[in-house]
C-alpha cells in the first residue's frame, strides 16, 4: 500500500466513543492503523496549583474531584500521606471503613468499565445490564456517604462517617445479589462468541512491554504481572485481609476484561471479610492543623491501577507542593504500542480497555514561551491569562458579572 492510500482520522476531542476530551490522531492504511498520536491535555484544571493555596482539609475536597469515578482513592492517598507526615495513626475501624468504601468504589468503577467496554463493541445489552447492576452499588455508596460519586468519607486522621449495623446488612445484601450477576458476566465473557471475537488478540501488550511502558492496574495484571499496591505495599488494613491478586496471561483486551470481572468477585470477598471483622471504636483521631515540614509519597491501588500522591509540607497549614500521578497517566504511554497494526474498529475498545480517565490524567500544561520555561505563581498566572486575552482583543477585566440573582 502506498502513502496515497493513507487517511488521517481524528478520534476526538469530540467523539461518541470518548466520554471525555482526548484526541487520537489515527493514520489509516485501509482499515489498518499505521500511526497514532495520543493527544491529551484538554482537561487541565490547575488542581495541583490550587492545592497550594488551600489548607489540608480543603484540599481533601478538591482532590476528591480529580476523578469522577475513583474519588475515594485519591483522598485516601492524600490523607495517608499527610497522616504519615504528621505522625498520626488512624483508628483501626477507620482503616476498615476506608477499605470497604475503596472496594465498593472498585465494584462501581469496574461495572462502569464493563458497560462502557460493551458499548464500544456495540453490545448494548450488556452495557445496560452492567449499569443497571451498578445502580445498586451507587445506592449503597449514597447510603454510606450521602452522594453517588463524591462520598466525602476520608478526613485527615480517619473517616467522617461510620458504617452502622443496618448499613452493613444492606452492603452484604447488595454484594450477594451482585455476586450472582458478576458470575453471569464471567460466564458470558468466556462463552459468548461475538464478544470473544471482538476482544481476543486486541491491544496486545506483553508483560515485558507492560513493564517497559510502566503500565499499572488491570492492564499490567492482564499481562501476567502480579503488580497490585494492595499486595506490594499494603496500606490501611490490606495486610490483614486474605485476597488474591488477579492476573491473566492473555495480555490483550480479553485478558483485561477477565481480570476486571474476577476482581469484582475478589472485591466482594474483601468487603465481606471487612464487614465481618470490623472492630468497634473511634473512627477519627485528632489531627493538627499545621503539618510538620517534610515530604512523602503515598500510594494506593485505585480501580484503574497505582495512584501516587507526592506531598511536600513546609510546616504551615498549606502544603508546598502536591503532585498527583493518577493511574491513567501511567497507562497512556503504552497506548500507541497497543494501537499500532490494529484495525480502526478496534481502536475505541483498545482505548477504553485501559479504563482511561482523562480528567485524572490532565494535570499540567507547559507554556512554551520560546527560550526558557518559568514557574509562575498564582497572581502572575492570573495576570498572564488576562493579558493573553487582551492581546486578542478580549478585555476580561471589563466583563461585568451580573449580580447574583436572589431566589428567596
Amino acid at each position, binding site marked *: 500500500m502506498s502513502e496515497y492510500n493513507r*487517511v488521517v*482520522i481524528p478520534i476526538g476531542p469530540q467523539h461518541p*466513543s470518548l466520554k471525555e476530551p482526548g484526541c487520537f490522531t489515527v493514520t489509516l492504511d485501509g482499515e489498518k492503523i499505521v500511526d497514532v498520536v495520543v493527544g491529551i491535555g484538554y482537561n487541565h484544571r490547575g488542581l495541583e496549583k490550587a492545592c497550594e493555596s488551600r489548607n489540608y482539609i480543603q484540599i481533601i475536597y478538591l482532590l476528591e474531584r480529580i476523578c469522577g469515578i475513583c474519588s475515594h482513592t485519591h483522598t485516601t492517598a492524600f490523607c495517608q500521606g499527610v497522616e504519615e507526615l504528621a505522625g498520626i495513626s488512624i483508628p483501626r475501624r477507620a482503616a476498615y471503613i476506608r477499605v470497604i468504601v475503596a472496594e465498593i468504589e472498585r465494584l462501581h468503577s469496574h461495572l462502569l468499565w464493563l458497560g462502557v467496554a460493551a458499548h464500544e463493541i*456495540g453490545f448494548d445489552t450488556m452495557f445496560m445490564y452492567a449499569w443497571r447492576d451498578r445502580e445498586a452499588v451507587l445506592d449503597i455508596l449514597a447510603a454510606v456517604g450521602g452522594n453517588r460519586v463524591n462520598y466525602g468519607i476520608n478526613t485527615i486522621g480517619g473517616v467522617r462517617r461510620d458504617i452502622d449495623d443496618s448499613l452493613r446488612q444492606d452492603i452484604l445484601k447488595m454484594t450477594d445479589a451482585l455476586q450472582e450477576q458478576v458470575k453471569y458476566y464471567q460466564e458470558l465473557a468466556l462463552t459468548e462468541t461475538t464478544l470473544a471475537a471482538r476482544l481476543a488478540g486486541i491491544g496486545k501488550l506483553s508483560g515485558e512491554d507492560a513493564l517497559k511502558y510502566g503500565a499499572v492496574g488491570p492492564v499490567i495484571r492482564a499481562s501476567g504481572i502480579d503488580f497490585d499496591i494492595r499486595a506490594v505495599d499494603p496500606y490501611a488494613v490490606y495486610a490483614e485481609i486474605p485476597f488474591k491478586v488477579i492476573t491473566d496471561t492473555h495480555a490483550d483486551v480479553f485478558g483485561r476484561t477477565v481480570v476486571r470481572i474476577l476482581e469484582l468477585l475478589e472485591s466482594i470477598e474483601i468487603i465481606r471479610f471487612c464487614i465481618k471483622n470490623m472492630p468497634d471504636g473511634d473512627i477519627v483521631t485528632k489531627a493538627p492543623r499545621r503539618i510538620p515540614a517534610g515530604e512523602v509519597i503515598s500510594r494506593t491501588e485505585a480501580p484503574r491501577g497505582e495512584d501516587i500522591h507526592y506531598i511536600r509540607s513546609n510546616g504551615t497549614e498549606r502544603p508546598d507542593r502536591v503532585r498527583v500521578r493518577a493511574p491513567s497517566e501511567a497507562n497512556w504511554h503504552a497506548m500507541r504500542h497497543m494501537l499500532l497494526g490494529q484495525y480502526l474498529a478496534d481502536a475505541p475498545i483498545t482505548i477504553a480497555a485501559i479504563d482511561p480517565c482523562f480528567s485524572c490524567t490532565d494535570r499540567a500544561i507547559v507554556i512554551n514561551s520560546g527560550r526558557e520555561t518559568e514557574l509562575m505563581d498564582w497572581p502572575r498566572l492570573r495576570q498572564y491569562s488576562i493579558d493573553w486575552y487582551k492581546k486578542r482583543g478580549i478585555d476580561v477585566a471589563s466583563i461585568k458579572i451580573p449580580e447574583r440573582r436572589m431566589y428567596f
Partner: protein
Amino acid sequence: MILGLLKIIVFPGFMFLTVYGLLFEYLDRKVHARLQNRIGPPWYQPLADFLKLIGKETIIPADANKTIFQILPVVSLAAVAAAFVYVPVFGKASIASFQGDLIVVLYFLSIPTMCLFLAGWYSRSVYSTLGSVRTLTQMFAYEVPLFMALLAPALIAKTWSVTGMTAFYAEHPLYILINIPAFIVALIAGQGKLERVPFDTPEAETEIVAGPLVEYSGRLLALFRIAVDCELVMVASLVSAIFLPFMTGHAILDFILYLVKTVAVLLFLALMRSVMARLRVEQMVHFCWKYLTPIAILQIIVNLLVRGGLGL
C-alpha cells in the same frame, strides 16, 4: 386505473408502508429495550422523532455535491416503496406482478444501500467516507448469500415472481421445510442488509460516529430514517412472503396473517440485535463467505435435486 393508483399510494402501498415502518421501528426499539431491561419508548416516539427532524435545519456541507446530497434520501425511499409494490400484503396477490419481479425487487433493495454509499461518499467527511467504504465492503459480503437464499425457493416454485412463489408454497406448504436453511441465511443476511447489530459496522457509532449519514441533518436525515424503517418492513415482508407463505384464502385474514408473520420476523431480528456484539467488517465478510454462501449454494443444489427428483 384510479383504484390501482390508490392501491400504490395509500393501501397496501406507500402510505401503509411508511405507517407500518414507523410502527416497526417502535416495536423494534421497544423489544430491544425490554430485552435490555429498559422501559423503551412510547408508541408515538418514531413519529415524534420524524416530525422533529422534519422541523430541524438542514445543513449541507460546503464541499458536498448539493444536488446529489439532496436527491439520495428521496431515491432511497422511492426504491423501497417501489419494491414494496411487488410483495403480497393484502390477499394473495401483490399490487403488481410479472414473471421475474423477484429480480426487480432485489434490484430495488440494493438501491438504498448504494444511496447510503453515495451519501457518505458525497458528504466529503472522513467518517462518512470510511462508513461508505464499509457499506460497500459489507454489501459484497451479504448480497450474494441473500440473493441465492431468496432465489433457491424459486427453483422449486418454478416461478420468478414473488406472488407466484407465495401462491405455489401456499398450495404446497410442506415444501417450505426444504427451504429452512435458506430461510436462516436470508434472515442473517437480511440483518446485514439492514445494517443492524452484529453487522452495523458501516454506522458503528463508537468508531466512525454515524458512518455515511454523519453529515445529514433535518429533513434529509428524516427521509433517510424513514427509508431505513421501510427497508425493515420490506425485508420482513419479502422473507415472510417467500419462506412463510401460509394463506387462508380470505383477504382480511391473510392480511392479519401477514402482520403476524412480519412481526415474528422482526422479533427475531430484534433478538439478534440484542444478544450480539458488533463484528468487525473483515469478520463480517469472513462469516458471510465462509458460512452463509456455502449454505446458500448447498440449498440451491438441494433444491435442484428435489426439483429433478420430484419431477416438478
